[in-house]
């Protein structure tokens, strides 16, 4: 029971798309202050494309990896900018980790997210926490999942802790100086503003948590 199956992942993707769409303007606004203002529009278009392509997919007959690969390709092909390869890299690695699987348990989920995180790091050129990027939300969330799994907690608790960690991570970006991406041009002037990429990661984790808690 304490697993996620293809249908769960499918529904979670729909929920991610909904959350991103609802926050499109806000995400672009965050990007406008320290970047170029396109983040919400672009990532929004990406998940919209993903969901459109998934509409012809029957989750009961498709493995998790394939579903996530469709998402990854949609993001890679339609987002562009920095976030296209970054979120694309996240989902490609998550897909590779779950290819052929129709359900995954918490340890497998931890592995999937760890692989995804490595994908982001690779594309980003070795991005580390503290550089005011989406890594500042993703890394603590993955760590929280890992710890929860080690402590034998259940799926819901694991994602509750991941969500709290992601939220704290997002907030922590406010006081950071950007070291990567467009915001880094501002140097010290980037202090005081929240990173849009990290905010999107928070919404993704939230979709996982909300789905699990409501099913």
């Amino acid at each position, binding site marked *: 029971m304490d697993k996620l199956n293809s249908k769960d992942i499918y529904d979670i993707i729909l929920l991610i798309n909904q959350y991103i769409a609802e926050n499109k303007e806000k995400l672009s606004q965050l990007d406008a202050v320290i970047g170029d203002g396109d983040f919400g529009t672009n990532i929004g278009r990406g998940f919209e494309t993903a969901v459109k392509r998934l509409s012809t997919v029957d989750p009961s007959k498709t493995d998790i990896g394939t579903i996530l690969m469709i998402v990854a390709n949609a993001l890679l092909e339609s987002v*562009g900018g920095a976030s296209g390869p970054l979120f694309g890299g996240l989902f490609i690695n998550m897909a590779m980790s779950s290819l052929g699987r129709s359900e995954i348990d918490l340890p497998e989920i931890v592995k999937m997210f760890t692989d995804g995180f490595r994908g982001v790091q690779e594309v980003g050129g070795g991005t580390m926490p503290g550089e005011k990027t989406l890594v500042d939300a993703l890394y603590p969330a993955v760590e929280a999942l890992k710890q929860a799994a080690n402590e034998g907690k259940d799926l819901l608790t694991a994602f509750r802790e991941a969500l709290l960690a992601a939220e704290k991570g997002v907030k922590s970006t406010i006081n950071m100086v950007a070291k990567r*991406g467009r915001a880094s041009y501002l140097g010290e002037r980037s202090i005081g503003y929240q990173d849009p990429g990290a905010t999107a990661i928070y919404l993704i984790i939230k979709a996982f948590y909300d789905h699990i808690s409501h099913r």
Partner: protein
Amino acid sequence: MNRPDDIVREMLEGMALAFPDIIRLDSQWNNVYRRYRKPGNRVALVCGGGSGHEPAQAGYVGYGMLDAVAAGHVFTAPPAPQVLAAINEVANDVGVFVIITNYTGDVMNFGIAIKMASAKGVKLDYIIVNDDVSISDISKRRGTTITILINKIAGAAAEEGWSLEEVKRVAQKVLDNGRDIGVALTPCILPTTGKPTFELAYDEIEFGIGVHGEAGVKRMKYIQSRELAKIMVDAIADDLKLQKGDEVALVVQGTGGTPYMEKFVFYRDVRMYVESLGLKVFTSWIGEFFTSLDMQGARVAILRLDDELKRLLVAPAYTIAIRTPGIVVS
């Protein structure tokens, strides 16, 4: 504007309708190619990036400059698969030369596309353009106007049948000898959100801006065109270590919403200051070359020339935005 999401495609359609003799549009990807392919034994040039910088880069496709351009959404690097499609379209035996502006998104997407194309056996090389002098960390410098001069000079070399190595060498020479700097008097308004990209008081100048409406490296009080010309030229001259007697090309441009009048007043001030430093102006480009939507502001770029660069800079070109001899301002 109609639907904001359609703006790039519709613009490219407009360009293709207006100049069917120069370009051809692949509307699946928003890629722009030469109407008539170059001979297969010539290096092909690929460039691209986010839109909103017109005439960059689609305006530079044509004889003597680029072969293919991948146009992303407004201010958004084109996705890697789109860039790959552009590379594949012009791939040939002598090689593809890819010109990349130094922005995270462009470097990532073009980088992935290059890796994929290489893996499939396409012969290619590339340059990452980082000419924006306003940032002191050289690895972070953005790609701006010198990109266009590379398009022009490497394009002329490719048209003459130079090898991939030689095309890359001359492109690198342009990058080593060229720098750009920009200022904004107003932000630009994103067509997708309808919002300005930053707030700027009436009497403030945003100094050291990129080309995406992102805020610059510092903010200063309004000063006269003459003083601004001096500060901007000095920043470039110091960085390039320009010497009395050096010959240069001067590019003075608006940022998309700058009135004609201000461009020529500013050009006069830049030119007079450049000459007062003992530099010789070989040629000037005045107009709009690498813009930021409707932003009001200005960019100055200077390229130190030798005989090779001079010859290639004035070599024939026939594109929408640049036709030599004679840069036309409109």
